[in-house]
């Protein structure tokens, strides 16, 4: 369908050319049309969501959800509100607290975001939670994992992704391969620059949603203060730039532009009653 539309637009282009261009090389024009088509051969949104849901189901296979409906609902409320301040507010955003003592958070393509119980338990305000979730949202917005998947995937998977084979429901093998390769990206991590970008954009998204811009930096300072040898941080530290480097960049990027932006006290009091009530 898309191909047909492209061809059609190609014809339109052809007839809208000025007269002197009519002696153009037909083969060359076809090549250009092909390249344009290639550039658009991206994973489309339904595919992105399907791959992301598959990866999310795998992550849940590694760690189930924390069995606490109220905490799950609270994290979904914070996350969904923050997501409305992104460029993709209509994705099927969903959030889950994983029952793992590891300190980490994950985003899967299409808008599924996880935070571990280990990380959530170290947070002290809704602004910090919003900062973590906003950082993860940027990975979804900027399709960091899809890019990593394409870069790392074996050629056959990359070709299938490029050819839109996944749209063919009969080809679930292709989808499963993509999901398996996709899950492995979480063990390796993303490019450092993707993480820096997620910090830089995440603080802005949290600020737009009315939260303290320093929520995410505060979390990074918490991570910095935890003994680096603590095994709960092993994967986080392996897959992310050091908190020191991230804080150093944020310091120079934020400057004094965020002075005067704070969160309403009610939000932080709410975090106490929703999360700290467990004490």
């Amino acid at each position, binding site marked *: 369908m898309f191909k047909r539309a492209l061809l059609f637009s190609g014809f339109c282009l052809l007839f809208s050319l000025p007269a002197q261009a009519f002696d153009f090389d037909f083969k060359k024009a076809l090549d250009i049309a092909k390249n344009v088509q290639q550039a658009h051969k991206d994973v489309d949104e339904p595919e992105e969501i399907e791959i992301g849901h598959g990866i999310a189901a795998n992550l849940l296979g590694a760690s189930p959800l924390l069995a606490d409906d109220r905490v799950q609902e609270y994290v979904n409320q914070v996350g969904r*509100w923050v997501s409305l301040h992104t460029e993709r507010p209509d994705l099927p955003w969903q*959030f889950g607290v994983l029952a793992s003592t*590891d300190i980490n958070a994950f985003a899967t393509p299409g808008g599924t975001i996880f935070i571990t119980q280990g990380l959530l338990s170290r947070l002290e305000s809704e602004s910090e939670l919003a900062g973590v979730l906003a950082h993860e949202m940027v990975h979804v917005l900027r399709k960091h994992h899809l890019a990593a998947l394409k870069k790392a995937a074996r050629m056959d998977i990359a070709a299938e992704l490029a050819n839109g084979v996944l749209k063919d429901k009969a080809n679930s093998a292709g989808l499963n391969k993509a999901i398996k390769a996709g899950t492995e990206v979480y063990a390796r991590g993303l490019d450092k620059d993707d993480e820096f970008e997620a910090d830089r954009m995440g603080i802005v998204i949290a600020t737009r949603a009315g939260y303290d811009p320093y929520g995410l930096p505060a979390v990074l300072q918490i991570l910095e*203060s935890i003994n680096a040898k*603590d095994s709960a941080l092993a994967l986080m530290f392996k897959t992310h730039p050091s908190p020191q480097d991230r804080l150093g960049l944020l310091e120079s990027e934020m400057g004094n532009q965020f002075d005067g932006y704070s969160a309403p006290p*009610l939000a932080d009091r709410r975090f106490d009653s929703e999360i700290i009530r467990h004490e």
Partner: protein
Amino acid sequence: MRYLYALILYAFLAAPVYAVQVAYAVHSTEIKLLPFSDAKTVANLDEKAKVNILLRQGGWVKINSKNGNGWVRMLSVRSDSTAGKRGDTGLISLLNAGRSGSSGITTTTGIRGLSEEDLKNAKPNPLEFEKLEKHAVNKAGAEKFARDAELKSRQFDYLPANDNH
């Protein structure tokens, strides 16, 4: 005797809510009288100077140091994780002004489950995925949740990338 108990209890309750935390200046910076960049400069904090952090307010922390007392930017000081022997505390309470401690979801027990190997060998768990979908919140629910805490949307443009790293 009862008075003594009352006195002890009172002393306990009146104790400072948050402990002083130690951190170090990552570079020299001005100590301000108030947490604003145009506030009066009290002194200059030396690079690597040790500071005691009393509380945080937005992007600022209130400190004591050998150079002087006042406010410095939160990101100009860092905790020294190598010096600390504790595994899981550090800056937690100092960076959350007025808080008495971290949240209480238990972390001492439970499963790890998210090591590199675990992720490579993960098999899908469709039942847990169903639960995940069940907890999702719609836009209207999220907007009500924001109103309940007086959270308001604000305009803010993305920052340009810093290419110096």
